[in-house]
């Protein structure tokens, strides 16, 4: 296996609100290799999106990266100025969001938006820009890309718009793409098409990808490794085989168990009791302890990482047996 080119180490991103400090991301560490898809799974408030935004350098007031390192090919991203980061984004790291209408300008044709993305970073002829746009539009499975270039976003379906956004992310040949729930709003058949094309691009271009999602089913089919987050903290990380095949953390198990397709039709689902704790008033121990049936007194102490194998790490005092 190749060496990781991207590392996040001890990331803490907090929001200093009037109600108090919201510790959205606490001590997150992971790495990424070329040609690899890392899935980050979690529910609302787990900190998965804030992790993605932190990497992109897009945490605004009252939020701040309090500590930790984010490094791509040895370059420290957290040390960048605003202007340096602006030039870095798109060229080295691109991001795709859930709603393509938030990314696309409704008043511009696809061609103009894509050209603008290139000319911000590179000085090449219109012919070259055109060829490159056609190439990436084809790569994400857009039929008759020439016609699409002259379309406005509202003239396309949701699935087509999201493909344009992904194609735009590929335009400058980035090293990695962060995708935050990119197919969540799409229909199943369209989602399947997009995932197929993305996986191919990852493999062909040797891209690194972070795919943020609440949906374990999609991740199980797409990701090479999965990071499970809960209330801003890491619960478990491992290969997809580790996480789906032999989950050891009680939260991962419960999450998998509450998916309808893992239950007998017509019977009550195995639900997780209670709610996620408020990020304003977190104790120093395991954030899942209050909902965990295996929890004991020790769970109110800070939880260290346990290395189960070369690929599989877990933050729990009472993991399940493998």
């Amino acid at each position, binding site marked *: 296996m190749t060496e990781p080119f991207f590392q996040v180490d001890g990331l803490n991103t907090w929001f200093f609100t009037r109600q108090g400090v919201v510790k959205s991301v606490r001590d997150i560490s992971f790495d990424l290799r070329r040609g690899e898809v890392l899935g980050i799974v979690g529910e609302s408030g787990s900190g998965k999106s804030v992790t993605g935004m932190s990497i992109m350098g897009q945490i605004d007031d009252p939020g701040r990266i309090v500590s930790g390192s984010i490094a791509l090919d040895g370059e420290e991203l957290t040390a960048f100025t605003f202007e340096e980061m602006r030039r870095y984004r798109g060229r080295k790291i691109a991001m795709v969001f859930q709603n393509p209408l938030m990314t696309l300008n409704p008043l511009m044709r696809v061609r103009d938006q894509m050209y603008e993305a290139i000319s911000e970073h590179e000085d090449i002829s219109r012919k070259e820009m055109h060829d490159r746009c056609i190439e990436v539009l084809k790569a994400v499975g857009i039929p008759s890309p020439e016609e699409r270039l002259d379309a406005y976003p509202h003239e396309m379906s*949701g699935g087509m718009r999201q493909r344009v956004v992904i194609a735009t992310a590929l335009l400058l040949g980035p090293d990695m793409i962060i995708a935050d729930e990119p197919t969540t709003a799409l229909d199943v058949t369209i989602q399947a098409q997009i995932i*197929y094309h993305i996986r191919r691009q990852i493999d062909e271009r040797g891209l690194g990808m972070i795919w943020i999602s609440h949906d374990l089913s999609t991740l199980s089919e*797409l990701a090479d490794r999965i990071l499970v987050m809960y209330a801003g903290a890491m619960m478990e990380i491992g290969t997809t085989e580790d996480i789906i095949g032999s989950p050891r953390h009680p939260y991962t198990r419960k999450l998998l168990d509450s998916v309808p397709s893992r239950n007998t039709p017509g019977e009550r689902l195995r639900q997780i009791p209670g709610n996620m704790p408020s990020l304003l008033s977190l104790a120093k121990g395991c954030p899942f302890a209050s909902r965990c049936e295996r929890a004991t007194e020790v769970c109110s102490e800070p939880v260290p990482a346990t290395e189960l194998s070369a690929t599989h790490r877990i933050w729990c005092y009472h993991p399940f047996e493998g």
Partner: protein
Amino acid sequence: MNEMIFEAKDLSRSFAVGSSALRDLANHFLRDRPPTVLRAVDNVSLTLREGETLGVVGESGCGKSTLARMIAGILPASSGERHFRGESYASFLARKRDALKVQMVFQDPLSSLNPRLRVGEIVGEAAVLHGLVPRSKVKDYVVDILSRVGLPADSIGRYPHQFSGGQRQRIGIARALAVKPDMLICDEAVAALDVSVQAQIINLLMDIKRDSGLSMIFISHDLGVIRHLCDRVAVMYLGRVVELAATAELFSSPTHPYTRMLLDGMPKISLQRRKFMPIQGEIPSPLNPPSGCHFHPRCPIATERCSRIRPELREIAPGHVHACLNVEEQ
């Protein structure tokens, strides 16, 4: 078999798209542009028996939400009939609206709950108006319903924005239950919720159904949820029902090519990486649906006549109907 509680016969609903006074005026003088008509629901026939849960599944633009609103009686039909316990909706809507014991739960509780009313008013209002409880006793009545959906009694004085998404959906369900419906229509009621919260709400709906024998129509794009909750499932595509069968049968032996494609596309928790090429093609615009069988341009087994002939629903096994010209048997 239980008695029929609801029946829809050849139910259709069309919308004139982009119609406005100015456009109407222009059309009046120019006469060359008939208004664009969107057939959101096209000749749908369904039945629901007492205590049964019927799922309606389909992708964007298939008309499932329009169908839900017609069944709930909040949207008039363009043509076709709706019957509740054998009596036409027309008579309910004209004279005795509260005798139509149908309630609806929506996808987004925040936009379907009045933000300026307290939970006590949201849940209690209709019950008082329907004469189910005197105003003096409404508080106890509401507290009782709130406890059924797992909300604490002190919720009564709070506003919708003070609750989490899952709790808001509980409020939406409480409001629907407050008028003692016999039939509940859930339109994507769990779609916006996190997995663990979704499981809690699904369990709540199952408990309610078990305790009160409520009949349910459950509209969703999520096949996993449909499979879990429903006794029978109708699959819709561009306004039409293309297949209807008992849940177990539909999932184990789907016959319509669209149903098969939908089941194939459904993400499953597995260790098998998806390698195969998914079926190509977009969902066509409901404004301009393909001729004949709406599915024919994307269908792997379509023949020439599929573009000419509209397939009717026909029975291919007991209780299993589908609308395909080419698939003869399972």
